[in-house]
């Protein structure tokens, strides 16, 4: 019983982390059609700089973590905006090329991070409470999982509100489909796209800092590992559907936990099989819109 609870809640925590990464990915893909392979790099740089800032100001405390998170969010957003303005924008409506440049960026970025911060993981400190556990139904749940879950819920709510309640949501969806026509209606669509990148990057930045809390380290490969799962989650959930991504995150993470534990460490295989199965049965993913 307690193992079950443990698996479920830690699965939820891992799912939250997946979602934090996937949310930006899904947003950017869904709204701009850009399959952003550089998303992992946004996350990694945010985690590194967040860690650098946090440790300089006050290491291992809540203040330090808050500063890390803030810096991470800012860095994520900034890097994303720079990427959009300097590179993606030049390739508008050429989605394949856009995906390709992001592949290039991710290759270059990981190499650069290795050059700067080395190949070894750098272990991080965090507030004491996060390293402790809370007992629920006999299972000792590590506290950082609660932080992850809370942040993921906040991000989900925030982005959904943004898209529903603001005119930007509309502009962005229309812009994906036919950018020329949006400009021809007198709207500066580029600004909206940059905004999307900023939001996606900020979510990735927060995800990066939280990932370093979850794993206990930062390394040049932090983003690449999470990116694969974020992709899988985004696709299973249905490209462009945030709620889909949220549901898929939890589904994938919990399934992965159970398979790793009960099926001899086959978590990854099971996830991959799930991906293939979902797409073959429902090519649009769980909640994706018709093409």
């Amino acid at each position, binding site marked *: 019983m307690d193992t079950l609870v443990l698996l479920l809640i830690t699965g939820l925590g891992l799912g939250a982390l997946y979602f934090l990464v996937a949310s930006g990915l899904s947003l950017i893909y869904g709204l701009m059609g850009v399959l952003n392979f550089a998303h992992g790099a946004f996350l990694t740089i945010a985690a590194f700089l967040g860690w650098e800032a946090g440790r300089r100001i006050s290491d291992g405390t809540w203040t330090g973590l808050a500063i890390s998170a803030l810096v991470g969010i800012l860095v994520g957003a900034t890097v994303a905006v720079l990427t959009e303005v300097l590179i993606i924008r030049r390739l508008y409506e050429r989605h394949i090329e856009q995906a390709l440049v992001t592949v290039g960026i991710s290759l270059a970025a990981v190499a650069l991070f290795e050059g700067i911060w080395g*190949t070894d993981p750098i272990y991080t400190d965090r507030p004491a409470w996060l390293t402790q556990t809370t007992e629920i139904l006999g299972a000792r749940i590590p506290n950082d999982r609660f932080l992850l879950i809370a942040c993921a819920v906040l991000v989900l709510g925030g982005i959904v509100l943004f898209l529903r309640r603001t005119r930007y949501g509309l502009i962005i969806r229309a812009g994906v489909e036919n950018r020329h026509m949006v400009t021809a209606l007198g709207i500066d669509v580029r600004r909206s796209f940059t905004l999307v990148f900023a939001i996606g990057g900020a979510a990735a930045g927060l995800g990066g800092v939280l990932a370093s809390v979850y794993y206990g380290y930062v390394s040049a490969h932090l983003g690449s590992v999470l990116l694969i799962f974020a992709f899988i989650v985004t696709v299973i959930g249905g490209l462009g559907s945030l709620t889909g991504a949220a549901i898929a995150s939890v589904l994938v993470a919990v399934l992965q936990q159970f398979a790793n534990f009960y099926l001899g460490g086959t978590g990854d295989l099971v996830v991959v099989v799930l991906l293939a199965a979902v797409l073959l049965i429902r090519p649009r993913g769980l909640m994706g819109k018709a093409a």
Partner: protein
Amino acid sequence: SGGGDADGADAAPVAIGMITSETGPLAAYGEAYVAGFEAGLDYATDGTGEVDGRELEITWEDDQGNPDTAVAKAKDLIGQGTKVLAGTVASGIALSLAEQAEQNEILYVSGPAAADAITGVNEYTFRSGRQTYQDVATAGTFIGDPAGKKVVVFAQDTAFGQGNLAGVEAVLGGQGADVQGVLVAEDATEFTPFAQQLIDADADLVFVAWAGASSGAMWTALQQQGVFESAPVVTGLGDVATYQAYGDASGDISFLNHYFGGAAGTDIEDEMITRLEEAGAVPDLFSVDGFVAAQMIVQAVREGGDDVDAMIEALEGWTFESVKGEVTVRAEDHALIQPMYQVRLVEGADGWAPELIETIDAETVAPPVVG
């Protein structure tokens, strides 16, 4: 093989090809190995870089942690007349290089790569570091008589982890322990449930074989779930970069160790450390592997000249003083018989640092002869 033509060739330099990771995921290990080798070469040739008047012409190549690159570099070196290859930290690459050595009949001195499979893989391949078996056997000495004890191996489901499990089964299982494995998928990121499983197993000893970035999270999970209260936990102490990875668990773990700066206390160790520090490096886990490799190559060239068979003969059964004390190249399978260490981490001003508990005698942890 074309043996060394007598006289005239004697003054010609000997081409040595060193292949290791200078970039890529294992670059840090490569760095320690390189520094150790330079120190060893300096020591073994008295700073001349020559053996009996013949210059050792060392070419360093970066394998980037990639076997394809390594093989290409090896072929290039061999094509240019290299008679001795040495190096690399990844077992997969070491096995590819061993294969090249055999196909082309040259000497190969493997580096820190730990796989047991390298020992005895062919007659051209030697090793300058320790192997998994020696790690495991060291851990076995921590629990007294293993007979009837329950040992759980907690490892990643990789060649390294599987090798460790097999090692424990062979070493401790062979001595009557009941060995059980908890293998975790390499890419798993969540270890809490497994920690729970370790507690439920109610073991007398938990042997952890872990490499890579996820160590920190794994140790946190073991500690949070209370594994240390339920059984003694032993693992290998890695390089300097990992000393801080165990977090609060550090004090609760018994470590087996291949080498850390200051472990041996021998004169040669002092010689090595002096040279390392002059070069701006610190003694680390794999410094000795480089140092030993240099000693072996010098020996091979001194006794064997250009003739690979003579070189092999010079090394087989050779016993010499090195950083860790007396070590022996076993004639039968080229295993390197060497002492190992039991270590604990203590917290000081600069964080956690290793402290020697006991030196384990070389013969006690010697692997069985292959073949």
